[in-house]
């Protein structure tokens, strides 16, 4: 498929003054989706997100039209998201895809937690994340596209099944599954959960802070503490382990921001439960990615080496269990 040509043909429907697309370039990363950056000749900066031709859809991933609908649904609540410009139709010749405005900022966690350029926005970032999550969690569920509901117990059961299938013998995961199952909080009132709210999916501007929540493919209905815990998983603190919220802030700032913006009260205990479950999930995901190497589906060194990141989640879990 000639994506740049299809984008040029679509240009007049993306912006009234445009006649063609320029600078179309596929960005690296994203195994299940393709991301293309391009401009229109009237200067509009855009992003195309599309399902690769013939690409298998992972069981957990949402249809792209659902992602687009969620971004449109949370925007009026005050959650910063890229504006959706078009959900593609088959006549557009791009397959399953949508187009959104391109934001100007940084998603690389390593830079966000360390670079001098972000030192002015870092102190307020954890509170802002709490506020934005409260806005997402307050989205009315009526009118949302169909979404799965999951609670702590069902998430644990799902990942334990995957772990058992891996054939791995990992005592930390065995202990963590039992420890967390005993403490799994009931789901009181399901809310819209982003499902992957962490460094990498947050667009940060050196001047304006959090300007975009990206990558809605794991959104579902669930416990608001799931999103609050996930951003505190040590794997995305990029070495800044003393700042539990994404390597840039403190638990209390995140919880205060969430509460101040109208979020239902979440205790630190409940957040820490979901943080530990998050570490366990990421550890099992590392084993899943390694499994595609072991099965022969993808014999790359990258797929093999990701398995060696499971131990980082084990050391984090041991610390969470021991304290």
């Amino acid at each position, binding site marked *: 498929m000639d994506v740049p040509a299809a984008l040029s043909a679509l240009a007049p429907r993306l912006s009234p003054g445009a006649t063609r697309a320029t600078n179309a370039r596929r960005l690296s990363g994203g195994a299940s989706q393709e991301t293309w950056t391009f401009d229109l000749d009237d200067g509009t900066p855009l992003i195309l997100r599309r399902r690769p031709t013939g690409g298998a859809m992972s069981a957990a991933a949402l249809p792209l039209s659902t992602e687009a609908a969620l971004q449109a649904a949370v925007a009026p609540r005050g959650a910063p998201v890229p504006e959706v410009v078009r959900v593609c139709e088959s006549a557009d010749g791009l397959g399953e895809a949508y187009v959104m405005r391109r934001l100007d900022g940084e998603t690389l966690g390593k830079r966000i937690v360390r670079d001098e350029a972000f030192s002015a926005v870092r102190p307020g970032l954890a509170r802002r994340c709490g506020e934005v999550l409260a806005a997402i969690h307050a989205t009315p569920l009526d009118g949302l596209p169909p979404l799965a509901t999951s609670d702590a117990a069902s998430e644990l059961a799902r990942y334990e099944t995957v772990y058992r299938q891996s054939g791995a*013998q990992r005592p930390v995961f065995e202990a963590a599954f039992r420890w967390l199952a005993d403490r799994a909080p009931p789901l009181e009132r399901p809310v819209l959960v982003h499902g992957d709210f962490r460094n990498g999916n947050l667009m940060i501007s050196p001047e304006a802070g959090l300007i975009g929540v990206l990558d809605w493919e794991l959104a579902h209905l669930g416990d608001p503490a799931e999103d609050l815990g996930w951003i505190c998983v040590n794997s995305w603190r990029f070495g800044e382990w003393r700042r539990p919220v994404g390597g840039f802030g403190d638990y209390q700032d995140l919880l205060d921001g969430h509460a101040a913006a109208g979020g239902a009260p979440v205790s630190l205990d409940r957040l820490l439960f979901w943080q530990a479950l998050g570490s366990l999930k990421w550890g099992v995901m590392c084993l899943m990615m390694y499994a595609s190497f072991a099965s022969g589906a993808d014999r790359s060194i990258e797929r093999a080496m990701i398995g060696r990141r499971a131990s*980082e989640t*084990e050391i984090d879990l041991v610390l969470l269990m021991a304290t």
Partner: protein
Amino acid sequence: MITHPSAAELTEALKAVQTGPPGDARAAFIARVADNARATLGREAALGPAAEAAAVERLRDLLALDGNFATLNEELCARLADGRLAPLNPAVLAHLKISLVDQIAIDQPGYSGLAALEAAS
């Protein structure tokens, strides 16, 4: 001792790595991953045997059983899974802490979880 992937699997994956064209971002990324894998294999060769021998000693005491690492580790997993050992059993946690410190020293010696664990104990 370490599996998913084992050292043998890493060695095999490294053999299949091909040099990409200069300036290619994907090839440069793969080259960095390959360098990491070689460094991991070096650390595992240097540190793995002593770590495994120490783990076997700890597991024999903890489980009151004899056997090699794989057998004893599997037994520990089974006892944790069926509740014969509690997840917060202090002797289990003590063993797991030492095991993880040893494994992180091989897999990712710069990982911050190591410093966090040391600061807490």
